[in-house]
């Protein structure tokens, strides 16, 4: 952060004389206004929002906060209230992260994987879907988003053993790269 230099100009002394007497102050307390706006996720500097496509239905912006919800509290228009048991479900392009700041950032989700016994759900960037669904996969990498860039995220759920619900809280972090 740059420090701001302030040049102080002193007006000519008027009146009775120029000498400062004692009693100069040694402290000042100045209140200044700081204006910070809290925006809904889809308007924020780091925007988090459901995608415009058909699978945006699986994400919500309740109270201005993005949530991924594949349950009866967010049924699809067609009436679906959850993933199938003993099945793998892949849903691409559910939500997007967009950098509306002025510096490139690296975006990570932590955790991106929730399990219950052998059943699990994973949230991952679409550009790294091979890491989830291909063979010889590696861990997820952070996503670098330049200013104005956007990444769409997918959801994969595998239920083999009878978990009735999966999920938790994801921390979406964005850190400036320089």
């Amino acid at each position: 952060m740059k420090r701001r230099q302030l040049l102080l100009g002193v007006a000519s002394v008027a009146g009775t004389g120029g000498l400062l007497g004692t009693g100069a102050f040694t402290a000042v307390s100045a209140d200044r206004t700081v204006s910070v706006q809290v925006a809904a996720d889809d308007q924020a500097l780091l925007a988090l929002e459901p995608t415009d496509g058909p699978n945006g239905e699986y994400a919500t912006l309740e109270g201005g906060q993005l949530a991924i919800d594949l349950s009866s509290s967010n049924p699809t228009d067609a009436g679906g209230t959850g993933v199938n048991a003993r099945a793998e479900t892949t849903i691409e392009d559910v939500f997007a992260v967009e950098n509306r700041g002025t510096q490139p950032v690296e975006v990570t989700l932590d955790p991106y994987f929730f399990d219950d016994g052998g059943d699990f759900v994973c949230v991952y960037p679409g550009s790294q879907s091979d890491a989830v669904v291909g063979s010889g996969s590696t861990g997820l990498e952070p996503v670098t988003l330049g200013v104005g860039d956007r990444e769409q995220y997918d959801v994969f759920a595998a239920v083999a053993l009878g978990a009735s619900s999966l999920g938790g809280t994801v921390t979406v972090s964005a850190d400036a790269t320089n």
Partner: protein
Amino acid sequence: MKRRTLIAGLGSLTVSSSLAVGSGAFTSVSAERNVSVAVADDAYAFLRLNERGSGERSEIDGGTLKFNIPGDDEDQYPSGNPTDPDGLGTDSVYRFGEDAAHDQSGLFAVRNQGTQPVEVYSTQDSTAGVPTVTMFDVDSGDLLTENSPSSPLGVGAGPLVCGLEIDTHGVPIQDEAYDIELTINAVATDGD
């Protein structure tokens, strides 16, 4: 920030200032968001599967669709004069388009409760020495396979009414039933 000295008596210099947070860039953000995924019974899930017809060739067990060919209650059909077979013949191909009571078309129905039209087909991991099971569209008679799936099933559209074709060529006769895992696939056609 350098402290500004204020010369008493000379009036104050009012300089507006603002908190220096840089020029609108953020350096880190951390936001906690919820992910919740529920597992629904077949009748309520995104890929909705229902059994059809009276008789237990197709039934719902523990919330999921299950098949037994012949059905557990096959010895009750036709009612009044039942036939009670032990199973399918070997080296044969059977098609079951209805349950044993023949009171409804199809052995099961597939509906799309997701968000995009999907193509539906069945696959079976291993067919060596066991019956080969393939789903078919009861109205068209077409087998629904990976290479030749159903035409796209729209969201909320009417059910895809299905049966099972079972091929027992090369499958030995035995007292125990063969337990086969049939995978029902629904893949969205590339929309966007």
